[in-house]
């Protein structure tokens, strides 16, 4: 290594070298110590000339340079370079390879050097940032340098020379300067502390090199410090803590900066881990804490500035941070002081506003007492015109001063209005010369009286000027008043001219003049010019100031010129036209010329200044002069006399003095006065008693005057009452507001008593005229026969007429009637009626017009029905829609209709009824509906133990009624019939019922009274019901009779065993027709069987049939030969009208043998179905129908009916159908019988009649007769063993008819015998004489045997082994099925035996 060794003596080489390095003895000495032989360059004495020369030049230069030579780019440098750049690397670096020397920046410079060596072109870099480790740490440094090639003796590039100047100080200095400059760039626009801090954050954030991060903490009032601003923290960090609590250890020291001390602190510890590095590679290691110092006070806070770790913390750095803190502190101080100033300004403005408001309010408040002073004073002056002069003088003084005070108050009000921007000027197009001349003329008398010349020279101007008349009046009068006040001789001159394109008005006097030094304050408010002499010490110092303000409102200016002792000239300039004025306040039409209205106070005041005028003004005449010019004296005198036609006035004012004053004034004028203290009371009073006029103050608590007017106008009953508003608020806008609200008149306080009275009189006359119309209208409405009412949209009835009260009992005294109106039926007791009337009234507003009938309740409680007609009308006064309605009492008509309807319903119901119960049930239902009753009961006290109850509640029977109710109903029988009784449940009435007395009770189920009309109606309906029931009863009886008769002619009521019959008459409700069947028990045990069919249907056919049936029956009884019977019947039929062509089947059956002898007179053949299903028609023995050929003989035939076969006889109605042959019908009938040949004949009969019925029912009479052979055996015998043999005998006979195998007969006999023995032995051991029933019936292939007793069998297991147990065994063995059914009344044994098995 080429390290030098201190203290090594220089050898010859060194000597040689010394000559090479002689240019600088300091660096040269060190170079000489390098062991050059260890480098590629070799010993210096062998160096080429070019190298030696280069080194010599290098060392000689005062400019910092270094060079690299040879293959290792061996490092050389001079002293300047050593000082500025190399630092601690010297002298180590000398003779070393360049890449070792500048290892840390080789990345940056290496490529540049290679470029130079390769291309031979020099490089240039300016202020390049290089981190040099020359001071023991990587240091931020900036360098401007150039690399240039170096050539050897042969001209080859073998090295490079770097000429460098370091810019570090300049670059960093510029940077810091920029930050400081920006911080202080434009603090004037930073209004608040926050804005200032935000600004600082922006600026500090732009220099993260010197300030990697900053934290600005501000001390808090309660101690501690709050983080107010921060830079360099993209996110949060524990070091950027929001609040530093003074109590404990804090991240940053807060006490030290508070003492005004700065410090640099290391950023060690966990809280400082991962601090943001800013633009640098590593986070800052130190921070400086600097107080934000306040001039003459404790610091505002402190700044924490992180320090760039690549720069040493030197004096410059510290100063920079201090300066930054200084800027921030200054900014905070400025912002805080600006805020304080602004708050102060705002407070002052607020104070000013409060003052203005105060002036405005106090001025308003002055007006009322002023009125109360001025009014009575004027009255007193009038009344005491003849009194002691002193008294008059004092009164005049009061009046005068009052007037002055009024003027002052008005001026103050004007000011406050101007200040508040509320001065509403109305600019009218005027001839300014004329207006001004008129105003001046008002003052002429006073000026002349003062002994001055008054010169008015008002030339007509070329163009119109727009002025507010009232304001202009004030301006001119103020100027004139002022001139008069300060002029004692000479003249006052008023002129108008056009000057410089503007209107100019001058008021010039020859008065005392104004000193120069006072001139600037001439127009200043409340500033009074102290002058040696004036006509009066009075003056508020606001006259000229007000004039100036008013002129300014007109876009004009006022100026003054004056000379002491010579006079003053005030000059007003106003622009022509209206272009400079707000267009909405400009009126092009010239206003109505009117006399000045505000001149009086000015003139009065002026006259007062003049000695001669003072005396004059002291009397009553003074007042008269002023007033005479303004308004004529009101003619009040006559009004005071006559209370006869005086009106009634309601006074509403919250000021008691004012009320008293007005009362005195009005009572004095003969009016009847009512006073109230506010609008609310006024409304109440008005509602009770309508006055002719209402005088109301505008300002009142609770309900003010304007609201009162609105309320009055909103109510139709009070809409037309005239209202006179009194207000302290002067000015047109106030009066317009009052009139817009609907007031009839408006008077500003203070007002003259006479004026008030004049207005009152005018309004009352108008009111009375108006009320005359109203009375006429009311008289018309009252004359209506129908009730009349007006109601509002919400249903409130606000007006009624006399008939309304007459019908409902609710008169006008109860108005308004709000829904629910008192005449509505009670919702609790009559919900339905309530609903109807509520619907009707609430529907009124929605209906254009219409009529409806509803129930209402009269004030005295009785029910009325009214028919309401209504229409919607727009009220022209209030522009609201109201409902005008009329109604009339339709109670009588309503009840008549109700009665008729109810009677019709009841009659209809009774007419429909075919029986008494049906009639009664229907009638009760009608009654229930009529009264919307919960229940209607009818108790008939007939022959039974307890009455028969019929009710609309089907589940209810007499015993379920409450005992009280039962008793109440029973007691009613004591009442006379048809007398209605209202009771707790509703109402009851006693009627006659065919079965006995009937008590009818209507149970309403709610507490509602039945009206007298209801009771009357109940009585009426009751009588109709009783009559109706009697009629129904009568009809019922007749019908029963008819049916009994019909049934009598139809056929036998009881049939022999084995038969079943059916009858279907074609004509309902008749139960008979032309067909018949008959069975006749003949003396020999045989049975006559007849089925016949007379021609036709209905009653006539039935009457023929009855005769034929009776005849046939009689003939059979006499001679049991069918042929002979029919032969005789032929003759009989000849004599009976309608009997010809009757067809008859007549047969005689031997039930024992089944032999049937028969003859047919043109009748359809009987159908015989055998047990095996074989079918056979009884077609023999057939001849013509009756009486067709009476002389022809009639044949007779015999048919054996086999056992267990079924015979069907019928009339043609059963089988005859249109478009179908009779035989098809007969086949169908045979098929039905065949299918049911094993069924019981009763069941089969039903089956046949149903199966063959056409779709719409039979349209011809049908009679059918079925016989099953043999007929069932039915025996009842005493339960004695002796009966067993006869029973067995009978059974044996019947079984013979059944045509059974012999074994079967014996089995049946034994089984039946055992069952009968059981019945006798066990069923009747205790009771003798009981009866046992036995029935045997034969089916096609089975026998059904039934034995019924009235006892109970022992269970078989108990009996086993005994006789009877053996009997039961036999029964089961012999029969196919044995079923023993014990029952409560006896035991039934059913046995079944199949035939042939």
């Amino acid at each position, binding site marked *: 290594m080429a390290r030098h060794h201190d203290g090594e003596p220089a050898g010859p080489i060194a000597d040689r070298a010394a000559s090479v390095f002689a240019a600088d003895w300091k660096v040269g000495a060190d170079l000489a110590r390098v062991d050059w032989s260890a480098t590629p360059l070799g010993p210096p004495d062998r160096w080429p000339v070019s190298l030696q020369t280069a080194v010599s030049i290098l060392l000689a230069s005062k400019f910092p340079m270094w060079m690299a030579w040879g293959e290792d780019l061996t490092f050389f440098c001079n002293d300047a370079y050593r000082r500025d750049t190399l630092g601690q690397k010297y002298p180590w670096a000398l003779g070393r390879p360049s890449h070792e020397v500048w290892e840390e920046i080789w990345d940056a410079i290496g490529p540049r050097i290679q470029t130079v060596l390769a291309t031979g072109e020099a490089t240039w870099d300016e202020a390049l940032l290089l981190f040099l480790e020359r001071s023991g740490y990587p240091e931020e440094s900036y360098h401007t340098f150039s690399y240039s090639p170096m050539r050897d003796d042969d001209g080859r590039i073998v090295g490079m020379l770097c000429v460098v100047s370091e810019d570090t100080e300049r670059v960093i200095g510029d940077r810091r300067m920029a930050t400081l400059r920006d911080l202080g760039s434009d603090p004037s626009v930073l209004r608040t502390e926050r804005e200032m801090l935000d600004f600082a954050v922006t600026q500090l954030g732009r220099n993260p090199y010197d300030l990697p991060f900053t934290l600005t903490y501000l001390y808090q009032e309660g101690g501690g410090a709050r983080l107010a601003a921060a830079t360099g923290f993209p996110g949060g960090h524990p070091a950027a803590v929001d609040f530093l609590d003074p109590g404990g250890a804090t991240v940053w020291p807060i006490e030290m900066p508070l003492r005004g001390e700065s410090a640099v602190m290391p950023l060690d510890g966990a809280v400082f881990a991962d601090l943001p590095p800013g633009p640098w590679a590593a986070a800052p290691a130190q921070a400086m804490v600097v107080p934000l110092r306040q001039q003459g006070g404790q610091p505002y806070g402190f700044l924490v500035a992180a320090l760039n770790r690549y720069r040493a913390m030197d004096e410059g750095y510290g100063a920079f941070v201090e300066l930054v803190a200084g800027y921030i502190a200054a900014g905070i101080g400025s912002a805080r002081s600006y805020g304080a100033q602004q708050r102060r300004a705002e407070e002052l403005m607020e104070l000013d506003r409060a003052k203005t408001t105060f002036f405005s309010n106090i001025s308003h408040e002055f007006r009322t007492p002023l009125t109360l002073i001025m009014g009575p004073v004027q009255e007193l002056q009038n009344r005491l015109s003849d009194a002691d002069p002193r008294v008059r003088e004092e009164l005049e003084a009061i009046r005068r001063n009052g007037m002055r005070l009024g003027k002052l108050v008005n001026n103050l009000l004007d000011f406050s209005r101007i200040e508040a921007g509320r001065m509403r000027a109305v600019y009218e197009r005027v001839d300014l010369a004329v207006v001004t001349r008129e105003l001046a003329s008002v003052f002429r008398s006073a000026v002349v009286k003062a002994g001055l010349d008054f010169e008015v020279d008002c030339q007509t101007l070329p163009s119109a000027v727009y002025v507010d008349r009232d304001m202009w009046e004030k301006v001119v009068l103020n100027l004139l008043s002022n001139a008069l006040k300060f002029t004692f001789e000479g003249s006052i001159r008023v002129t108008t001219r056009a000057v410089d394109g503007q209107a100019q008005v001058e008021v010039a006097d020859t008065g005392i003049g104004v000193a120069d030094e006072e001139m600037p304050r001439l127009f200043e408010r409340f500033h009074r010019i102290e002058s040696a002499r004036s006509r009066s010490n009075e003056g508020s110092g606001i006259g000229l100031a007000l004039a100036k303000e008013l002129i300014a409102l007109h876009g004009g200016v006022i100026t003054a010129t004056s000379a002491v002792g010579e006079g003053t000239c005030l000059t007003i300039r106003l622009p022509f036209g209206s272009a400079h004025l707000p267009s909405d306040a400009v009126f092009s039409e010239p206003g109505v010329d009117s006399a000045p209205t505000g001149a009086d106070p000015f003139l009065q005041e002026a006259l007062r200044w003049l000695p001669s005028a003072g005396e004059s003004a002291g009397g009553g005449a003074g007042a008269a002069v002023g007033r005479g010019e303004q308004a004529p004296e009101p003619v009040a005198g006559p009004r005071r006399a006559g209370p006869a036609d005086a009106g009634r006035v309601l006074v509403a004012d919250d000021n008691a003095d004012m009320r008293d004053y007005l009362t005195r004034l009005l009572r004095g004028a003969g009016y009847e006065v009512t006073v109230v203290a506010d609008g609310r009371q006024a409304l109440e009073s008005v509602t009770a008693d309508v006055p002719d006029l209402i005088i109301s103050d505008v300002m009142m608590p609770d309900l003010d005057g304007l609201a009162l007017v609105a309320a009055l106008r909103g109510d139709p009953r009070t809409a037309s009452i005239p209202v006179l508003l009194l207000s302290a608020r002067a000015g047109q806008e106030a009066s317009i507001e009052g009139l817009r609200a609907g007031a009839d008149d408006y008077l500003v306080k203070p007002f003259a008593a006479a004026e008030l009275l004049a207005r009152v009189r005018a309004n009352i006359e108008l009111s009375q005229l108006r009320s005359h119309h109203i009375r006429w209208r009311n008289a018309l409405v009252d004359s209506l026969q129908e009730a009349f009412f007006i109601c509002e949209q919400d249903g409130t009835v606000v007006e009624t007429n006399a008939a309304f009260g007459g019908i409902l009992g609710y008169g006008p005294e109860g108005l308004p009637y709000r829904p629910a109106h008192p005449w509505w039926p009670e919702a609790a007791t009559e919900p339905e009626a309530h609903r109807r009337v509520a619907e009707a009234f609430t529907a009124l507003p929605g209906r254009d017009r219409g009529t409806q009938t509803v129930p209402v309740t009269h004030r005295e409680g009785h029910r009325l029905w009214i028919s309401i007609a209504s229409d919607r009308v727009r009220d022209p006064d209030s522009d609201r829609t109201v409902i005008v309605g009329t109604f009339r009492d339709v109670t009588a008509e309503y009840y008549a209709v109700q009665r008729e309807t109810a009677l019709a319903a009841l009659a209809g119901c009774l007419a429909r009824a075919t029986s008494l119960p049906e009639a009664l049930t229907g009638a009760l239902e009608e009654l229930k509906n009529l009264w919307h009753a919960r229940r209607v009961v009818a108790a008939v006290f007939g022959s039974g133990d307890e009455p028969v109850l019929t009710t609309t509640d089907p589940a209810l029977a007499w015993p379920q009624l409450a005992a009280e109710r039962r008793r109440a109903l029973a007691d009613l029988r004591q009442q006379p019939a048809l007398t209605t009784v209202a009771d707790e449940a509703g109402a009851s009435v006693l009627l006659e019922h065919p079965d006995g007395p009937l008590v009818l009770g209507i149970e309403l189920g709610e507490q509602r009274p039945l009206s007298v009309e209801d009771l009357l109606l109940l009585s009426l309906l009751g009588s109709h019901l009783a009559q109706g029931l009697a009629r129904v009863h009568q009809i019922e009886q007749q019908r029963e009779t008819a049916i009994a008769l019909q049934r009598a002619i139809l056929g036998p009521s009881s049939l022999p065993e084995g038969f079943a019959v059916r009858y279907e008459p074609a004509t309902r409700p008749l139960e008979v027709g032309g067909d018949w069947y008959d069975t006749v028990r003949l003396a020999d045990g045989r049975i006559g069987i007849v089925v016949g069919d007379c021609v036709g249907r209905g009653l006539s056919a039935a009457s023929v049939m009855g005769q034929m049936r009776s005849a046939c029956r009689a003939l059979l009884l006499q001679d049991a030969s069918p042929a002979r019977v029919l032969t005789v019947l032929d003759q009989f039929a000849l004599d009976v009208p309608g009997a010809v062509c009757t067809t008859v089947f007549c047969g005689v059956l031997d039930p024992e043998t089944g032999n049937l002898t028969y003859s047919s007179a043109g009748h359809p053949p009987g159908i015989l179905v055998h047990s095996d299903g074989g079918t056979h028609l009884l077609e023999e023995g057939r001849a013509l129908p009756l009486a067709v050929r009476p002389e022809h003989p009639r044949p007779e035939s015999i048919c054996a009916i086999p056992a267990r076969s079924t015979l069907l006889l019928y009339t043609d109605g059963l089988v005859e159908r249109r478009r179908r042959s009779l035989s098809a019908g007969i086949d169908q009938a045979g098929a039905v019988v065949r299918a049911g040949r094993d069924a019981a004949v009763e069941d089969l009969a039903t089956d046949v009649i149903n199966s063959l019925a056409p779709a719409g029912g039979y349209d011809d009479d049908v009679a059918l007769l079925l016989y099953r052979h043999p007929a069932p055996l039915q025996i009842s015998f005493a339960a004695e063993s002796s009966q*067993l043999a006869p029973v067995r005998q009978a059974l044996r006979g019947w079984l013979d008819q059944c045509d059974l195998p012999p074994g079967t007969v014996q089995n049946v006999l034994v089984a039946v015998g055992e069952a009968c023995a059981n019945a006798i032995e066990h069923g009747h051991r205790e009771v003798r004489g009981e009866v046992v029933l036995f029935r045997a019936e034969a089916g096609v292939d089975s026998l059904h045997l039934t034995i019924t007793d009235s006892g109970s069998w022992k269970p078989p297991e108990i009996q086993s082994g005994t006789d009877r147990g053996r009997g039961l065994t036999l029964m089961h063995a012999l029969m196919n099925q044995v079923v023993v059914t014990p029952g409560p009344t006896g035991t039934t044994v059913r046995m079944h035996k199949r035939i042939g098995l």
Partner: protein
Amino acid sequence: MTAPLALTSSRRQDGVTVLTAVGEIDMSNTGDLATAIEQVPGPIVLDLTGVEYLDSAGLSVLFAHADRIQLIATALLEPVLTISGLADLTTVHRP
């Protein structure tokens, strides 16, 4: 009235008593049958050829003497005798 029943007693050549019943036997006349049988000591032949009806009451009399009687009965009575089991206890002869 009781069921018609005629009872006649005779002695066969071998000394056995033959009791001949004609008519119907039911609970109304079993007492007569029982008396007639009890009057005969020793074996007895009961001829039921003329009996048209015999019910369980009559059977119970015959069961009481089943060890000493023989029966003569037609096919008419056969089911009853068989079902009741009497035919198994006594000898039944066809007439």
